[in-house]
């Protein structure tokens, strides 16, 4: 299943919200008492006009529905911002936008 994402970019700021359970593999199911298997985003990459500005390795310690916001120098209106992500099960997602 593709990783769903939302993105906003502008004024030197990039914000990315993913929809993902971010299970670290340590939590137990309340009913069955069984461990819930690990399922979290491991890699995310953000590029501006093809140049990677953030290359992240993430652990299961990132909260459910991972949110990132960061500031990039020199981003201009119309710059193409692309985000890609991949989780530990091989599911991928990507989204792109133009900086406002």
């Amino acid at each position, binding site marked *: 299943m593709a990783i769903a994402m939302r993105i906003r970019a502008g004024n030197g700021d990039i914000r990315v919200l993913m929809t993902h359970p971010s299970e670290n593999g340590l939590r137990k199911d309340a009913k069955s008492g069984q461990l819930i298997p690990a399922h979290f985003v491991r890699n995310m990459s953000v590029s501006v006009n093809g140049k990677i500005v953030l290359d992240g390795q993430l*652990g299961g310690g990132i909260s459910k529905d991972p949110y990132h916001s960061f500031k990039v120098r020199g981003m201009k209106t119309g710059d193409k911002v692309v985000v890609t992500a991949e989780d530990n099960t091989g599911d991928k997602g990507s989204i792109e936008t133009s900086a406002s």
Partner: protein
Amino acid sequence: MDTTRRLLLRSAASAGLIATAVAAGLLKPGRVLADWNSAAFSAAKAADALAAIGASGATPSPDIVVKAPDIAENGAVVPVEVVTTLPDVESIAILGEKNPFPLVALYTLSDFDGFLSTRIKMGQTANVRAVVKAGGKLYTATKEVKVTVGGCGG
């Protein structure tokens, strides 16, 4: 004569072993871009995780501020901001020092403009630590967060 030959053979063998060890060390995961450093992310101690990403021995710096709530009622969602005035930031690592797996995230950055924020889980009251690599040097800062309900399961 014979002794010299033995010595030579022995030193050649140990030199070979060292070379192999170095090669193995250089091939550790995490040195490859876009890879995932499984040793670092599965380390149970913050110091081990930092060693695995080559970020041990960072200097405490007043130029990094870790912003997080003093008290987190829900450890599953703790907003964390890393704000720094350090120039030439190359990477930022974020750790929940007493989490089952302390390393939460490691970001390699370019054209970074001093602000990064995310939301992390915390199992218990602990320091959130940021380690920033800037200009080839390591700097660090922490912020203690009191957690009333943990967010790491168990």
